[in-house]
């Protein structure tokens, strides 16, 4: 069989991979800000919950989390009388987003803490409310600092999407495995898929670079 005939099923899988990456990266970014700022909160409940979330999802393996959400959560739901059975797409996006969000939360926390103290003091002296200080002073300075690491995390997340093929989601890795089972032509299939992932990673990196330039546009040139 010609290798070009693999392209149609692989690109179907590639589309699933792209969707998973986009959804879970956006959702993960949301978690990162939510729990990263939560860890800096003065409310012990919010802080404790955020720390627990970050430690649990950074401290265990993504595959353990994925299997737990997909296989164990429905049983737990049954025990407490809730229907916690999720379709593979939802379980996959949730596991990826929760995992990458925990790594991102530490980045958010670090960047926010790195904003010089004088900035807070000046904002307080100018009578900014807490929310305004966060939106107008802290985040605009902290976000550009987060971007290089966020770029790495987005590529990490793209690579991690391959694992959802193990809960029978039809992504690129899953299609590759199917084609290999069918044709036994493993060299061609996996070489092709490696290059497709590499290409996607380059696109993700380029997008994150654009975003980095966008969020840092207020900075003086040359900084």
């Amino acid at each position, binding site marked *: 069989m010609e290798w070009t005939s693999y392209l149609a099923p692989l690109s179907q899988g590639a589309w699933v991979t792209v969707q998973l990456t986009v959804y879970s990266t956006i959702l993960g970014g949301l978690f990162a800000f939510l729990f990263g700022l939560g860890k800096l909160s003065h409310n012990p409940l919010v802080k404790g919950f955020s720390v627990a979330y970050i*430690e*649990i999802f*950074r*401290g*265990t*393996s*993504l*595959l*353990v*989390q994925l*299997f*737990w959400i997909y*296989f*164990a959560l429905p*049983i*737990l739901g049954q*025990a407490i009388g809730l229907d916690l059975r999720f379709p593979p797409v939802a379980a996959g996006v949730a596991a990826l987003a929760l995992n990458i969000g925990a790594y991102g939360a530490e980045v958010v926390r670090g960047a926010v803490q790195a904003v010089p103290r004088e900035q807070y003091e000046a904002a307080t002296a100018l009578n900014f409310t807490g929310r305004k200080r966060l939106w107008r002073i802290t985040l605009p300075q902290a976000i550009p600092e987060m971007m290089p690491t966020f770029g790495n995390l987005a*590529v990490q997340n793209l*690579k*991690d*999407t*391959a*694992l959802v*093929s*193990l809960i029978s989601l039809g992504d690129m*890795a899953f299609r*590759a*495995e199917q084609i*290999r089972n069918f044709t036994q032509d*493993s*060299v061609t299939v*996996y*070489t092709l*898929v*490696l290059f497709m*992932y*590499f290409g996607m*990673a*380059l696109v993700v990196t380029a997008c994150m670079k654009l975003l980095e330039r966008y969020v840092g546009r207020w900075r003086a040139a040359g900084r």
Partner: protein
Amino acid sequence: MFFGIEWDTSSQWAFAVSIFPILLHGLVITLEATVVGFFIALALGLVLAALKSAPTRFIRWPAKLLTEFIRDTPLLIQLFFLFYVLPEFGLTLPAFLTGALALGVQYSAYTSEVYRGGLEAVASGQREAARALNLAPARTFTHIILPQAIPRIIPALGNYLVSIMKDVPVLGVVTVLEMLGVARIIGDRTGGYLIPLTMVGGIYLILTIIASLGVRYLDTHLPKRGLSLK
């Protein structure tokens, strides 16, 4: 029954207690794969780092491209690639070694950057001073550069050791019986996924917390100004 150990489904507690030794069997495999993969990553990373600082760009650029390629492609696909492609070239390794090799290859991209970063972080004044004192290049490297680079390199490598441990469950797809794979088999046979998978998560959490405390200890206790190699 698994690894010759019977499980007890009379109550949830009894079940958890009875499968714990079975999971520990899996844990041993996980730790073995982590250590073997880590040493392969250390060695391959050294090779990549050396190639990336080669005197000619005809070696440097391909090495950089290769590092980028390894780093930007998923471990799972690299593992399948090695698992199915190596035998076609007549190299048939046991699943465990193929898995450890895949971990080593994936993480060599990261370790090579750690080596490079550690060496480059040594202030250039140190090289200049060594040169002014007429030290031979080899002696400069072993007695001036390395002692100052190692305290930066070791904690970073420790973090990757932890990451490798968290990636070992991927090897389950090529029939390596690591801890998560064992937990899944217990779940398949008893229908109770909740307890074994939660226990695996708990064991992972304990291990990574211990490991990150160890890394933090190294980070604060290694002398930043240089390690005596004598």
